[in-house]
């Protein structure tokens, strides 16, 4: 083991900055990063063991104890639960004889939960040794477990392949693209290399001006003007870096997965254009580990682009050098925050940085860095190709261009839609075949929960901004229990814990909503949650804490009656339920419970 680990460390040139890659390889080879492994890595890198542990313990795909030969990670995000996750979980537990969070005695199978894996349009889904299994049900689970017991390779556990590149020999995945509507920009017609060729014929400043003029704004959700970001970064001196944020962790989002699958060339070309514009030689695609099934394909696309001299040295003979490497994450939502992403790409815990300095000033390796979303880079390619005027003519005056939506939940046609900004929620619901809608969760858990009375609002940066997640919630759902509680559990798990308020409030708020859902809440709790959410919003460093109370505050605002129905109008309500406790203990000893209410 020692030699092999030393070998891995050696392969990354004993660079502590590549800690993520080292840990990923150790985890995949040994099924865990044990204390012994930590010790070997630490001494090889000449860092302390606690330094290795701090990275190891931050990401949930790194484990201290070995996972099973087949490590099953079932997605427990909202849409998965809506689509029958509990049955899948029940069946897994029944056939394996173990509970989630544990491993069979022979070490063959381990069962784990994981946050949204970007398959909301084909839930319930799970990852087994990085291979995606979608639309699971009891029968499929029984077959999977039988296959595991028979020792089948994970790749051979399914026969049907997905559409498009999903069926590519280097991907061979059952994932479906579900592209329901292609628009003129990211999912429109595309010829490899055309945009970059045109960019290289322009002055780098002119490229930035073109992007600025297009009014393109960040597609990850924050909506920062892309051209302005590139401009700021280009003005800084020293080495520059181009980072692509493909962490897509917002539950209910999966549009970047489709772009990565179907538009990988376009993405890399967009990164190269950005590199030319700001004066960078190196790009990094930070790809969430949930999409590691695309690894071989990504590498093949990079090789192809190098062969075509779209990447590499002296591109198209214009004296421009640019290359890209793929950095995998290891399971941490907060790494979608740009400065946390940089920390992670540097091999550290994904803790968001303090600002200033901003990444455009001091980013990756403390050098000027731009970080853009996958869709942003893809859009930039078309902007350069067709010009800013063409782009600006699409959409609304404030929101130029198109937006990819990942629509899932209670609708007939879940999938990816490239829409023109300005579409109303009502139009969207008609488009996806949604009826009896109770609410739409716009922009994922960190966004807002929208009631039918506001369905005429527009999907646009000036009205309802979104990174792409749209979850349709039907009338049959228990909004507080099925949605709000699930979201708060998610945030409590995913807070990096660095800020006091984010670490604690998300737990406290989660406990408060749980108390209300379980029927122990009182009127006062509603006001408290509002007041505490406000403190949380004002006192955290990054977007996670600033938005993580939104599931609670937006539902209190828009669905107050659901809370009023559940809380009691009393001064004090015990959280301890005597009758329930008696019933539980009687059940344990096998005696009928006699309860006098």
């Amino acid at each position: 083991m020692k030699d092999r680990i030393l070998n891995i460390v050696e392969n990354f040139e004993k660079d502590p900055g590549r800690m993520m890659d080292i840990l990923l390889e150790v985890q995949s080879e040994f099924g865990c990063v044990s204390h012994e492994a930590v010790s070997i890595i630490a001494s090889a890198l000449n860092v302390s063991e606690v330094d290795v542990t701090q990275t190891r313990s931050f990401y949930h795909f790194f484990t201290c104890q070995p996972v099973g030969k087949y490590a099953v990670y079932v997605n427990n995000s909202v849409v998965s639960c809506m689509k029958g996750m509990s049955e899948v979980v029940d069946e897994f537990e029944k056939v394996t004889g173990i509970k989630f969070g544990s491993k069979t005695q022979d070490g063959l199978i381990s069962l784990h939960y994981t946050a949204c894996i970007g398959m909301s349009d084909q839930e319930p889904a799970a990852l087994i040794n990085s291979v995606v299994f979608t639309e699971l049900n009891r029968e499929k689970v029984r077959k999977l477990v039988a296959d595991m017991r028979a020792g089948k390779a994970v790749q051979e556990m399914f026969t049907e392949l997905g559409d498009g590149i999903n069926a590519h020999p280097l991907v061979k995945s059952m994932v479906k693209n579900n592209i329901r509507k292609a628009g003129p920009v990211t999912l429109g017609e595309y010829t490899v290399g055309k945009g970059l060729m045109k960019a290289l014929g322009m002055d780098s400043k002119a490229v930035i001006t073109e992007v600025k003029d297009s009014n393109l704004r960040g597609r990850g959700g924050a909506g920062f003007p892309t051209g302005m970001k590139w401009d700021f970064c280009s003005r800084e001196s020293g080495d520059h870096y181009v980072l692509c944020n493909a962490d897509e962790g917002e539950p209910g989002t999966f549009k970047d997965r489709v772009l990565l699958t179907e538009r990988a060339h376009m993405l890399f070309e967009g990164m190269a254009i950005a590199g030319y514009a700001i004066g960078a030689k190196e790009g990094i695609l930070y790809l969430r580990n949930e999409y590691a099934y695309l690894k071989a394909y990504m590498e093949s696309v990079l090789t192809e682009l190098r062969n075509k001299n779209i990447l590499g040295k002296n591109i198209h003979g214009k004296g421009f050098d640019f290359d890209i490497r793929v950095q995998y994450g290891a399971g941490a939502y907060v790494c979608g925050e740009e400065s946390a992403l940089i920390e992670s790409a540097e091999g550290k815990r994904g803790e968001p940085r303090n600002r200033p300095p901003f990444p455009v000033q001091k980013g990756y390796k403390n050098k000027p860095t731009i970080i853009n979303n996958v869709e942003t880079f893809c859009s930039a390619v078309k902007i350069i190709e067709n010009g800013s005027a063409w782009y600006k003519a699409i959409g609304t005056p404030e929101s130029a261009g198109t937006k990819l939506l990942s629509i899932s939940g209670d609708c007939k046609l879940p999938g990816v839609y490239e829409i023109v900004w300005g579409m109303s929620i009502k139009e969207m619901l008609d488009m996806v075949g949604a009826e009896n809608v109770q609410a739409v969760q716009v922009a994922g858990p960190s966004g807002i929960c929208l009631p039918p009375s506001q369905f005429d609002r527009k999907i646009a940066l000036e009205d309802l901004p979104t990174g792409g997640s749209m979850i349709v919630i039907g009338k049959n759902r228990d909004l507080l229990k099925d949605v709000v509680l699930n979201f708060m559990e998610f945030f409590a798990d995913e807070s990096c814990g660095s800020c006091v308020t984010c670490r604690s409030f998300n737990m406290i708020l989660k406990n408060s909503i749980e108390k209300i859902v379980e029927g122990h809440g009182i009127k006062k709790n509603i006001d408290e949650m509002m007041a505490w959410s406000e403190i949380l919003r004002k006192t955290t460093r990054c977007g996670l804490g600033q938005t993580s109370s939104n599931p609670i505050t937006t539902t209190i605002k828009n669905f107050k009656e659901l809370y009023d129905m559940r809380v009691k109008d009393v001064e004090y309500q015990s959280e301890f339920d005597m009758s329930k406790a008696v019933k539980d203990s009687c059940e344990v000893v096998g005696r009928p419970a006699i309860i006098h209410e």
Partner: protein
Amino acid sequence: MSEIVKFTIDGKECQGKKGQLIVDAAADNGVYIPVLCHMRDLIPAGSCRICTTKVNGRYMAACTTPVDEGTVVENDTPELLDIRKAIVEMLFVEGNHFCPSCEKSGNCDLQALGYKYQMMAPRFPYAFERRELEASTPKIFLEKNRCIFCKRCVRVIKDDQGRSVFAFKGRGKTLQINIDKKLAANLSDEMAKKAMDICPVGAILRKEVGFVEPIGTKKYDHKPIGSDLKNIYQ
């Protein structure tokens, strides 16, 4: 570099160096902004959020935000005081703090802030988190029940090769402070003392030299926290 800029805190005219952190510039001008994680000349952690102020109308941590010409800082407002009190309460419910039995009582910044903001009963429910006492290193007790995750020890205490003796482990609700047993085995008395001194609470305690300072002579025994702005962050 050291261009002088004028700024205001609650209307008071102040001067500072351009780019200087608000919390330091305020102290230089005799204005106290409470801190737990901040130490002068150390890379800011910005993690305890107790120094939350309004800077040009926006809520910012004073320990991570630089002053500039004309910066308007709001510090002593009822809203901000309540936020700070809430943070202190939050730290008390999050960990397990029993002041009467703690050696740092009187020298503890968290306790002192509890008094300053007149905390009675915390508004938040107690977490009753189960945390460990790490006593296996020769010089130090690491009392995790009291850690407030300020990262002072993480940032300051290094071995002679610059390796970290302390680091975080886990994230969110599983976050804990972790000590490197191998490096801690070789920690000098001087470093052990420093670790205990910079810890704003009683999470890091030296072994074999307990309770040397008599009650009545400790930092906050006679004057409340914030009275001595010169030595405020050691």
